[in-house]
């Protein structure tokens, strides 16, 4: 599994994460700032999550690979 962190303080609402991994990220209706839909994602989404991290202009997203039983 991959643990996902999103920092609403750093987010500028560019929307790349929502477009890249809509299973994991959304934007708050009230202000367009990032919101996590799930705390962790399956390894199958690793490539997309890496891309979201790379595209985020304000470094608001971080991911961490975790083992199944941790």
């Amino acid at each position, binding site marked *: 599994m991959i643990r996902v962190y999103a920092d609403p303080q750093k987010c*500028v*609402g*560019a*929307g790349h994460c*929502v*477009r890249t991994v809509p299973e994991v990220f959304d*934007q*708050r*209706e*009230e*202000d*367009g*700032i990032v919101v996590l839909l799930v705390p962790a994602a399956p390894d199958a989404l690793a490539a997309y999550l890496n*891309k979201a991290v*790379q*595209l985020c*202009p*304000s*470094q608001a997203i971080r991911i961490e690979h975790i083992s199944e039983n941790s």
Partner: protein
Amino acid sequence: MDSIAEAAAPVFPFKRECPFDPPPQYAAARAAGPVCPVTLWNGKRAWLVTRHAEIRAVLSDDARFSGAMAHPDFPTVTAARVVVDQNERAFVGMDNPAHDAYRRLFTREFSVRRMQALKPQISAIAEQLLGEMEAHGPPADLVALLAVKFPSLVMSALFGSPYEDHEFIIACAAARHGLTQSTGEAESKARELAAYVRRLIDVKEKTPGDDMVSRIIEEHVKPGKLARDDFAEIGAMILRAGHDTTTNMIGMGTLLLLQNDALRRQLTDDPSLIEAAVEELLRYVSPVQFSPRRVALEDVAIGGVTIPKGEGLFMLLGSANRDERVFERPDELDFKRDASAHLTFSFGIHQCLGQMLARYELHIVYAAILRRLPNLRLAVPLEQIRFKHDMQIYGVHNLPVAW
């Protein structure tokens, strides 16, 4: 180092040799080092940041680089732009924390969900304009009939500005983005546009509609979170940004498709390529030429070269987008590549607020052009196309086509 740099610093901006490629000095500067000293119109030294990695790093380093346009050392490519920058009151010219506080009042208006919901309206506008172009018949100027009108109609629907005012708004954007305007002209147009939005706020306050101005009044102005005058300045910025860049992408992108039969066929045969094609066209065209800019707040070393405190830097997005370190065969237009790392919308906290709108506009308009006008071709030799060598946002002034 300093004396060598000063002696060697060429005058910026440079001229393009090929209308489709950045000035050749960019590739040479990228090969020589991550920064390149240049001399500006006022004799001041500034630094070009030419590589993808260093541009991302500078734009992410708000502690050591300021994007405050009112900073006395903020670099410009024209004298006219100095006054415009000094008077910039929208968050595009602010550092944090003020930038984020203002920007956050508007991010929701440009969220992915909101922009996706606009797609049917955007499609209808594209179809309407292409219908009018067909009715006009060939030859027709695709810039005048489509590239200019399309983002104007979209912005009108989204923002709430009456469509009949679009020529005025475009003239205001052109005054800011020109390379030849007088100082008075650039600044007076900036004031006129802010005053126009200020009057629109008054109108929408009395007679609200389903548009951005009415929503912002309700959500932020009435509760006292946003002053009407500040909204007017931000609104002017949004209107300018919503017109010029998209217009130039439509003109240049269409011209590139007309110049590359194989790419055009590829896109016609497989419409699912459109998203990748738009990212690649954004990378390749890079219409914004002399922004973003920063001022060093302290002595900062970039790749072993010290940028002294108080000196200005230009992030050459068009150079980053041709950086061999990131993009293989960077001067080749290739719809099969993953171009999404391009910096056309900049990077860092100031990355374009309207970028998702721009993407959807371009997906829809290019697809509609290819579908409705399969035999589209240039109606004049390439030599008769007037490229925007006189503007800070690059594109074509005209695109006579037949079909």
